């Protein structure tokens, strides 16, 4: 047996290489650059890398349009329009998320000065006094984004698994870095890690079963082996279900959602925004590829499961969101409900299903980054009037619309988009996903989805009413801190995108509708 070295198309790999390369350079910067300028260098590197990767993705899109899709690195990764579309959407949200992460709102960034210090210890207090910063955040985010770029493009099960881990591990760490409420943050980190590892185990077990069934980890071989189901269908189905469990865990579908509220609440808010948007995009893109390209022959077997999960996800997410009193938890449960809505498009199994999912994810991602970005700005005051942690209790936002109309209007816009009110992007997103589901014959799901979104409107509207029509409670006084500008830019971009995508979605919709041909 002779070894044939795989040809490596560096141009096609450029987006991934740029992001991961920048992450590695970021680690070296941590090692060699002086404290005083390190943060600045890291921020510039991260923003430039994400921007450059986005431009490269756009360029590769034109190349793929002209020359057709291709296999890279011996078939471990493919470059096709759905992959590039997902990468583009991930990079847009990551770029905006990075702007929020990089902002030192109120004069300090959102991360602990020293992650290794025990909460409340003198060591931590000393680090805070010295003004240390944990700039490892930036390379970690870049590593995670690198994983998210590989995830939707992976074309064999092992690459898929490694991408999953590369995107997850930095997130576990980042979840524990919040500057305030350290215990909550560490708890979130540990929970996320344990449950993530747990789901990875299921994923890996499924992967093993699929390898056992087909004798190959390549998607193409697996897809070819699926129709041949003879005697081994139990192994195949169990493997597929376990792989789906791993992916559904990442998107936060019920019953694999338990981590979502705790982790979203405990993580640094800027990280929550990034994670909620980008992880979901990458995981859904991988899920769509897996269901549409690898195991389309199993639709009949899988649809009872997927229907059940979609229904549960929409209902549980919506109902539990209604009773939340913490904004981050409310947005977390709302993101669970949104996962259910996206599942509708996934279940449709039509080409408009793919494009609607992509569009929905873009819309959802943009509004999520914007909404969490705004949450970072609203702070509590203690008895002496010092600004402390984020004011995440719902009642602390009462009357915000009077004192900070611009902020409240932007937040309202994102909420309306989440609720799917016409002329916001969320409406078009929901509309296309529902239309695709109806087209795919899943109209009972659509009925439930419409009911769920009507019910969901309740808590979004309650929030709006609270901001604009309720007198602020003097005891729960909250204040808005100044941004360095980057959060403001990110929120403004998100707000504009939310409106524009709601009014003239056609250009983007026609773009996503070109991203429906999977290559194996």
């Amino acid at each position: 047996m002779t070894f044939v070295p795989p040809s490596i198309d560096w141009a096609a790999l450029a987006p991934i290489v740029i992001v991961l390369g920048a992450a590695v350079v970021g680690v070296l910067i941590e090692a060699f650059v002086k404290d005083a300028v390190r943060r600045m260098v890291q921020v510039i590197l991260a923003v430039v890398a994400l921007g450059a990767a986005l431009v490269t993705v756009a360029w590769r899109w034109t190349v793929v349009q002209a020359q057709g899709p291709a296999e890279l690195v011996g078939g471990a990764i493919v470059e096709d329009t759905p992959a590039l579309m997902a990468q583009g959407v991930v990079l847009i949200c990551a770029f905006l998320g990075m702007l929020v992460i990089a902002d030192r709102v109120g004069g300090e960034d959102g991360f602990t000065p020293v992650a290794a210090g025990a909460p409340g210890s003198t060591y931590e207090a000393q680090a805070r006094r010295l003004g240390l910063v944990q700039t490892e955040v930036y390379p970690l985010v870049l590593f995670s984004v690198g994983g998210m770029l590989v995830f939707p493009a992976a074309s064999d099960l092992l690459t898929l698994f490694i991408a999953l881990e590369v995107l997850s591990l930095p997130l576990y760490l980042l979840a524990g870095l919040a500057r305030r409420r350290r215990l909550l943050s560490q708890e979130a980190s540990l929970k996320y890690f344990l449950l993530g590892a747990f789901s990875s185990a299921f994923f890996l077990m499924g992967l093993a079963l699929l390898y056992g069934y087909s004798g190959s980890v390549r998607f193409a071989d697996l897809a070819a082996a699926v129709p041949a189901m003879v005697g081994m269908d139990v192994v195949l189905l169990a493997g597929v279900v376990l792989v789906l469990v791993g992916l559904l865990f990442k998107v936060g579908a019920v019953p694999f959602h338990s981590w979502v509220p705790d982790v979203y609440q405990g993580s640094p808010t800027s990280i929550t925004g990034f994670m909620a948007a980008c992880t979901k995009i990458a995981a859904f893109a991988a899920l769509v590829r897996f269901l549409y390209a690898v195991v389309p022959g199993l639709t009949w077997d899988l649809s009872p499961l997927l229907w059940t999960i979609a229904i549960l996800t929409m209902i549980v997410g919506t109902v539990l969101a209604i009773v939340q009193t913490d904004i981050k938890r409310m947005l977390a449960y709302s993101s669970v409900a949104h996962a259910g809505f996206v599942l509708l498009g996934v279940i449709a199994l039509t080409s408009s299903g793919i494009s609607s999912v992509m569009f929905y994810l873009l819309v959802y991602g943009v509004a999520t980054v914007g909404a969490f970005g705004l949450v970072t700005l609203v702070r509590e005051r203690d008895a002496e009037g010092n600004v402390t942690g984020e004011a995440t209790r719902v009642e602390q936002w009462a009357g915000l619309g009077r004192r900070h109309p611009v902020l409240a209007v932007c937040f309202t816009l994102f909420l309306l988009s989440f609720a799917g009110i016409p002329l916001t992007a969320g409406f078009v997103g929901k509309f296309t996903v529902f239309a695709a589901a109806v087209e795919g014959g899943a109209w009972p799901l659509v009925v439930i989805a419409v009911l769920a979104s009507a019910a969901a409107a309740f808590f979004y509207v309650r929030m709006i009413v609270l901001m604009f029509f309720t007198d602020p409670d003097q005891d729960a006084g909250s204040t808005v801190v100044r941004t360095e500008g980057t959060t403001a830019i990110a929120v403004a971009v998100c707000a504009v995108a939310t409106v524009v995508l709601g009014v003239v979605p056609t250009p983007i919709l026609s773009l996503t509708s070109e991203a429906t041909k999977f290559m194996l």
Partner: protein
Amino acid sequence: MQDTPLTNLAWLLIAIPLASAAVLLVGGRRTNAWGHWLGVVAAAAAALLGIGILIEMLGLPEAERIHDLHLFSWIPAGDLSVDAGLLVDPLSMTFVLLITFVGALIHVYSVAYMEHDENRRRFFAYLNLFVAAMLVLVLADSYALLFVGWEGVGLASYLLIGFWNQRTEYAVAAKKAFVMNRVGDMGMLIAMMLMFASIGAVDFETVFAAAEGTNEGILTATGLMLVLAACGKSAQFPLQAWLGDAMAGPTPVSALIHAATMVTAGVYLIVRSAPVFEGAPTAQLVAAIIGAITLLFGAIVGCAKDDIKKTLAASTMSQIGYMVLAAGLGPIGYAFAIFHLVTHGFFKAGMFLGAGSVMHGMGDEVNMRRFGALRRSMQITWITFGAGWLAILGIPPFSGFWSKDKIIEAAFVGEGWQPWVFGPIALLGAGITAFYMSRLFFMTFHGKARWKESEDSANESDKDLPVQHPHESPLLMTVPMIVLAVGSVALGGLLAIGDTFTHWLEPVTGHVEHHDPVIAIPVLIGATIAIVLAGAFIAWRQYAASAVPVTPPEGSVLTRAARVDLYQDAVNEAVFATPGARVTEVLTEADTTVVDGAARGLGSGAVGLGTWWGRLQTGFVRSYASIMVVGVVLAVVVVLATRV
């Protein structure tokens, strides 16, 4: 095809008020000085353009009066592509003129009415926004775009009801309206889904063309959902509860949105969807029944209310009940429904403005038991309100006579039990209407004054009465009232004589042969007038000729029930809110007891670790993990079950 330059500009109808709203909202305080006039100009410009289009349309032969203007392709998603386009035809133009003309008058009125409100600019921005959204609603050429306007007017209405949101109960009223409208909106969405599923399109042209060949079951379901949507927006039974509370908004808002235009959107929806209802007689019948119930419901509630605005709101509900009843009667009723809608738009808006004028002069008092004998101090208001009152009573030759009488006649047309039920109800409704509207009129303008001019009144019996200085409102307020009063007097006769209005709508509603009611028309007219006069006479005897107590008497069971809107809130609470809250509670309970309970149960095994951190941590993660395991096992079982 003739050239139609103005019609092609129909998009400006929407763009002008929208642009004005945008300028006012974005411009902020800088536009405070002239913002309200910009709002007035925008509304007036839209009205002028509307009149221009009308004149152009009148110059065309009947067959060419329907224009579909394509604007842009909005949502291309798979097989479904939704284009944004405007449908300019006699029906939509009728609404355009009503909205822009009455709207412009109310804008003018508001300049004076809101003069002392520091947020007047924002008020005008919302009003303009409302006008734009309402025009989108009536000009849309597809259900999807109509839905945009539908939600838009809902939003504007919500913002305006809650305009004085510093009062908690007003904000609550706004939320109530929003939530109840949401129920109707769901009907609209489901109707659209059904159309898309069965016909594959949601634009009027395709849907109506395909409606004939579509399964009656689907059409009935679609029709029922459309009726549900109409009930939400038009405050029809059983979704009527929000309208009374909506009176929390400033009075011009009540006049424009909650009397003349938005609340009639449901009637528009039913008439516009005529081809769907043609294939769904059950849905049509349901609409008629709902209209009949509401017209009685509103009328009964109206008899017991002491709040002048709430009485008018109940009356609006009742009058829209007439329109929905007419629309539910099928082709013979469509034109009359719209006709009554137009005349009602004038006289009811006029009366609301009159009520606003009374409140203006009486220090924002709304309780009619504190009014009385205002005709001397507010003569213009008295006369203009009187015109509206005679119109709603249906006294010939005032407007209401021509339109309401036609609906009563149409209700008596048909076979079987229907004419014998709908007809008498419509007739009875007219009598009750006469009673409560006369009650309102006499309690406000006639009888003895239940207030006093100054503190040092000689009369001992006056000592508990409030001091008021009623005065006539400024010109900016009285002129719109006068214009609307002229409409209340003459519009009906003008449009009804020679069936002008019915002919004008024919390109949309189709030509209908005359049907004879089961009772001869002259008898019907005579009976109607007799019952109306009887109602008015009873009211005169009770509220003008004899003294009205300042504190309301306890009243009969029916009166007490009517004062609390026939227990509508209690019913809603019991039927919808409580079970809904209970479901949520149960789920929360399950979350806390099952999930947390399991966590604590597991966690107690780890008490040795000592710290709360450890206990909570281990407990939660274990329980989460066990949820996941259960999920995985069930998932595998579900999938494999199909194989075994």
